[in-house]
Each structure stands twice: as C-alpha cells, then as structure tokens.
C-alpha cells in the first residue's frame, strides 16, 4: 500500500546529503535564498544512519549525483501488441500464448490498434512530440524467455519524443511545502514484453511461462535530470498517477505492470559525468528511492577511497538494503539492431493530414485523441485547490493515497459541512487513523456516509468538536452504529440549556475560589483552567466559546 509518498520518503534521507553538495537535491529550484538556509540546517542534523560511512575529510570536493530512469509500463489492453492472445495477470502457464508468441516459424506480427492509441495518449499527456512516422526494429539477444531471439521495439524512430514530466517534491521544515520540478522525457516507444523465467536451482533448470511474452509495453526514457532517490520516487509516482488517469496502464509495481531501471553516476560539479551503473529489480517506489540513494553513496565512498566505478548492472536486495553486482560472463551486450522487415512504418495522422474517405478503423488521428484525453492529475489538483480552497500539499496527499480522493468526494457529496472542514477531517483524522493501523482506504471501517453524517452533526452544532472526535473513535470500531446512534447512546449532545450551563459555571467557580482570585488579580490565563474544569463537568457537551462567555460575564459582574 502506498504511504503518502511525498511525506514519507523525504524524512530520514537527509543525512545522506550531508556530503552531497550540502543537500543540493532539495535546494535546486528553491524559490528564495532563505530556504537554502533552512535546508542546510536540516542536512547537518544527525539522523540514525542505516549503514556506516566515513566522516568527510577536509577540503573535500562536493559530489553531485545524476540519475536517469528507464520505465516500462505494461499497456492496459485486452490482447497483446502483435497477436490476439489475451493479456491477463494470472492464468495457467502458457495458456495465453499464440503461435506467434511462441515464435513458431511462419507467424507474423499484426499491430494492435489499442496499443498505438495508448502510446499516443501517453505521449500527449507528457507533452511529447508525436512522430507521424515511426519505425519498428529488432533487438537481438538470447534468453530462454524470448523465444524469437529478438524483441520488436522502436529504437531508431520511436512514436513520441521530447516531452516533460512535472512532479512535486516535499520540502520545507515540516515537509509541507511542495516544490514543482520537471524531468525531460527523451522518448516513448512501443515494445514487446518477454516471458517469465522461474529459476529452479535445485534441479538446475529454468521453467518458462510465455503468458507475458508479447504483451505491449510503453518504454518511457527519462533524461538524467534527477539527482536523488526522492526525486526519482516522486517522478515515478506522478507518472503512475498519469498512466492510471489515462487508463493506458494500471501501473501497479507490485504486479509488475510498472518496472523501473535506474542509471546512476556521480561526479564533481563542473567536471565530466562519471561512469554509470544500472540498477534493476526495483519493484516498489520505496525501494526505488532506497536503492538509488544507496548506490549514490556507494559510488561516492568507492571513489573517495581511490576505487573506480565499473559500468555494470547491479541488482537491489531490499532485505539487505544494498545493491549487488549482477556480473555476467557475457560482457557488454551487442544487440545488433535491424529494421523489423515484417512491419511497414507506422503512420499517424492529424486533422489536417487525415486522408479523405479513409477507413476510421485503419487510421489514428492524433488530434482526436488529444480531444478525448481525460483530466490529468495536475489539473485535478488545481481543480481541488480552486474548488475547495485547500492547499496544494493537501491535493497531493489526496491523490497520492489510493482511494482517498474518491472517499473525499463521496463525503463532500453527502454533507452540508464546509469543504475546508471535510478536507481537515479526511486528511488529519481519517488518514491519521488509517496510517496508525496501516490500513488502505478500501479497508476503512468508516464509510463516507458515516463521516458525512458526523460532519453534519458538527455543522449543525448538535455536538462539539471534542465530542465529534469521540464519535469518530467509536465509529472506527466498526460496530455498525451510525453517528446519530452513538451520540444519543453516549449523550454527547451539546448542552442547549444556557440556564443549567450558567449554574454549572457558578458551582465550578464556587468550588475553586483560588482560581477565581488568580483571575481577579490579573492572570488572564487562569480562565482557561476554569473553562477546562467546566468542560470536564459537562463531559465535553458544552461549547467552549459559550463557557468562556458565561464565565467572563460572571467574573465581571
């Protein structure tokens, strides 16, 4: 389950940047000079180290890290990229495999229209230039889960190029400010997925399931504009939200629908880029950030000890929290790219170039696709801020937590209470309870209707806010009672009777003459003690503002 990403990852990571340019990762793009002082202060705070490092030596140069990501997203379609077999997460082994997927001789690829549309939608959402003509190539390498011995991809001329992805990084003292950052997108290409290998070390064999072989993938290549794990995680999270909003991929990392490889190198600012390593086997956003930060630090340590970085592939081991070399006997791969001879160029059209009288099934109109793009996360957030007057940070949290936005909108629909109240209750109280018990929104014992009813009671001043919190705690037990029932059972209604409240205030004042003396002698804060005593006496059933008003009237009389 994804934690509110932006809040979690930032904390506890800062100490690693004590030696990486004094926290340049966060400082970059900071709006004013004053923030850099705050950040510098943060990075010198000693946090509990996860692993040992050396103390910085005197006169040491600063380091900057460069991170590039290659993201593979499985296209959400009924059938595969070049064949008509089904795309499904789990099924009996080799049951979703056609003759083409098994690479039997004489079979030919036939391009799936839906996959092309998905690629165009994604390209448009990421501000890419869509190539009206793109080409397919073969990338050759031998592996048992690639029956053809090559993968059909788009190396020379991909379907979309030169885009950008804007994401938000938490900064500021309380991680409450969101700083927008952008990473450039080099290209988006269509390619085939490979099958799955299950390694049976005991019997020294590998079992191959080709169900996944031939499934359409979108490879999104990011330029190396990222500089740390937190940025990478935030960028990937935003891409995930975009793909899910578009419906082009379910982008679930745990199910392998979104896979990320990171290319990482370090260098001194102003000097040429260092040797990069590729880190694979990152199957959650959390591990992605961890692995990148570990690798950056490992490279820094290695270079500072006079060692060198090898251009190799490394795998992240999450139990140990480190990357390890996947050294292959084969050495550097030569993929021998060649044009795919069985596929003509892919030609796309727009409103102006659309040939007259063309079969609509056989042509793809970029302009038409652009018009039907759904609302993107960035726009959704802006709309939430405009419509409900919430802070940008709040909108990030609402979108980052799976199902939270829907929950919020359902509560808004059913309650009379002000949107700001709803925002506060959903993001603070509701989300707080979820986090404490490590639950997803879907597992919540409190339904949107229940919370809406509770907020109505609060809004109509039937109960006080302290009482409301009590009711919420009762609701969380999930015993099926409505807020109204709980209120009457526990007699939490606000005292309406001013007369009896005045009597109570009077008796409290009589019982505590020292406090009254204190107040009369000019200690204004003593009134809070009185208010507290009255509240206790009323079992939180009185409005504190009214209590204060009555007490003040009594004291002045």
């Amino acid at each position, binding site marked *: 389950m994804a934690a509110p990403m932006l809040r979690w990852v930032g904390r506890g990571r800062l100490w690693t940047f004590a030696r990486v340019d004094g926290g340049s990762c966060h400082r970059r793009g900071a709006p004013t000079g004053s923030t850099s002082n705050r950040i510098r202060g943060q990075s010198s705070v000693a946090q509990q180290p996860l692993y040992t490092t050396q103390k910085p030596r005197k006169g040491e140069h600063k380091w900057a890290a460069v991170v590039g990501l290659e993201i593979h997203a499985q296209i959400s*379609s*009924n*059938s595969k990229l070049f*064949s*008509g*077999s*089904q795309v499904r997460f789990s099924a*009996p*082994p*080799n*049951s*979703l*495999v*056609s*003759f*083409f997927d*098994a690479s*039997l001789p004489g079979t030919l690829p*036939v*391009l*799936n*229209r*839906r*996959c*092309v549309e998905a690629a165009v939608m994604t390209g448009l959402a990421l501000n890419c230039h869509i190539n009206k003509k793109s*080409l397919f190539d073969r990338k*050759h390498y*031998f*592996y*048992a889960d690639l029956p053809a011995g090559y993968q059909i991809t788009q*190396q*020379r*001329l991909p379907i979309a190029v030169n885009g950008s992805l804007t994401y938000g990084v938490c900064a500021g003292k309380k991680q409450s400010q969101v700083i927008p950052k952008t990473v450039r997108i080099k290209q988006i290409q269509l390619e085939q997925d490979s099958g799955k*290998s*299950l*390694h049976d*070390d005991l019997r*020294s*064999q*590998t*079992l*191959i*399931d*080709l169900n996944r072989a031939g499934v359409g993938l979108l490879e999104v290549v990011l330029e190396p504009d990222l500089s740390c794990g937190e940025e990478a995680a935030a960028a990937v999270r935003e891409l995930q939200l975009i793909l899910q909003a578009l419906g082009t991929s379910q982008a679930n990392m745990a199910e392998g629908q979104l896979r990320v490889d990171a290319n990482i190198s370090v260098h001194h600012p102003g000097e040429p880029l260092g040797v990069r390593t590729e880190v694979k086997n990152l199957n959650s956003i959390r591990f992605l950030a961890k692995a990148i930060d570990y690798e950056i630090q490992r490279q820094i340590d290695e270079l500072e000890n006079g060692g060198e970085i090898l251009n190799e592939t490394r795998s992240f081991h999450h139990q140990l929290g480190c990357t390890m070399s996947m050294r292959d*006997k*084969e050495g550097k791969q*030569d993929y*021998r*790219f*060649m*044009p795919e*001879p069985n*596929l*003509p*160029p*892919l*030609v796309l059209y727009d409103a102006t170039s659309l040939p007259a009288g063309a079969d609509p*099934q*056989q042509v*793809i109109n970029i302009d038409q696709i652009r018009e039907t793009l759904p609302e993107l996360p960035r726009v959704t957030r802006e709309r939430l801020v405009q419509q409900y007057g919430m802070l940008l940070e709040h909108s990030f949290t609402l979108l980052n937590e799976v199902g939270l936005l829907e929950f919020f909108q359902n509560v808004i629909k059913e309650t009379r209470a002000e949107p700001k109240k709803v925002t506060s209750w959903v993001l603070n109280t509701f989300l707080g309870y979820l986090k404490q018990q490590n639950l997803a929104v879907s597992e919540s014992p409190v339904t949107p209707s229940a919370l809406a009813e509770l907020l109505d009671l609060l809004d109509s001043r039937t109960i006080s806010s302290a009482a409301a919190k009590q009711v919420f705690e009762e609701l969380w037990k999930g015993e099926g009672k409505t807020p109204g029932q709980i209120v009457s059972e526990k007699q939490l209604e606000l005292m309406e009777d001013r007369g009896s409240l005045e009597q109570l205030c009077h008796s409290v004042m009589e019982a505590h003459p020292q406090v009254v003396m204190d107040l009369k002698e000019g200690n204004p804060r003593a009134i809070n003690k009185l208010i507290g005593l009255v509240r206790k006496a009323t079992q939180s059933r009185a409005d504190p503002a009214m209590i204060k008003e009555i007490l003040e009237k009594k004291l002045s009389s």
Partner: protein
Amino acid sequence: MWSRLVSLGLRAPVGGRQGFTSKVDPQGSGRITVQVIEHLERLALVDFGSREAVARLEKAIAFADRLRAVDTDGVEPMESVLEDRCLYLRSDNVVEGNCADELLQNSHRVVEEYFVAPPGNISLPKLDEQEPFPHS
C-alpha cells in the same frame, strides 16, 4: 529502383536519426580479425568452423561494399521495401491462445505445463578451448 534513387537525389537527409553502424571492418580492408569472428559466434551462435567459412564472409562483405560506389548524399535511406504499404491495425480483441497442449508438444522437456530450459545462458567456449563437435 535506380530511377527512383535519381528522383530522390535532391531531398535533404532526415536529421537526428540513428543509423546502424557497421561494427565489422570500418576501414574497408576486407580482412576479418579473429576477435570479430569470436564476437559474431557468441552473438549469433553461428559456427564459423573453417577458414573457408570466414573467407566466404569476407567475400560477402566485399560484395555488399560495392554499394558504397553509389552517391547517396541527400537521399533518404529506405528502411523497408514495405514503406508504401499501410500498416494494418488490428482491433483489440482476444482471438488466439488457449493452446498450451499443442505448444508444449514442441518442447523436448516439459514440467507441469512449463517449458524447461537450462539455468541461464551457457556461454560459448573460447576459440582455443573449443572441441570439434558434430554439426546436426
């Protein structure tokens, strides 16, 4: 085909495209080194068993090199003889699959509906370590 090349002569080349570079013998001297043969054998799993095979490869490259005699400045490369054809777009419907039994019959070894493969790639031994083995 020749007249077509002539008529395209004045078209400007497409910028920024990655062409495929030739790794074998960029100088054009016609000799293939032992390292290149080893590299090719590993990549393509082809066995250049004899000196004659290598000579045949060298002749093939020399034959293809004759293309360099043509002046292709300003001519857009042809990627595919299908370039004037329309790429057919299939509707996203499930029409194939569910033939595991048939497919598994092709495999020498099968375990519970999985194909069985060796545990990872077996790298080709180096040229001097190679033993002569029968060609099937």
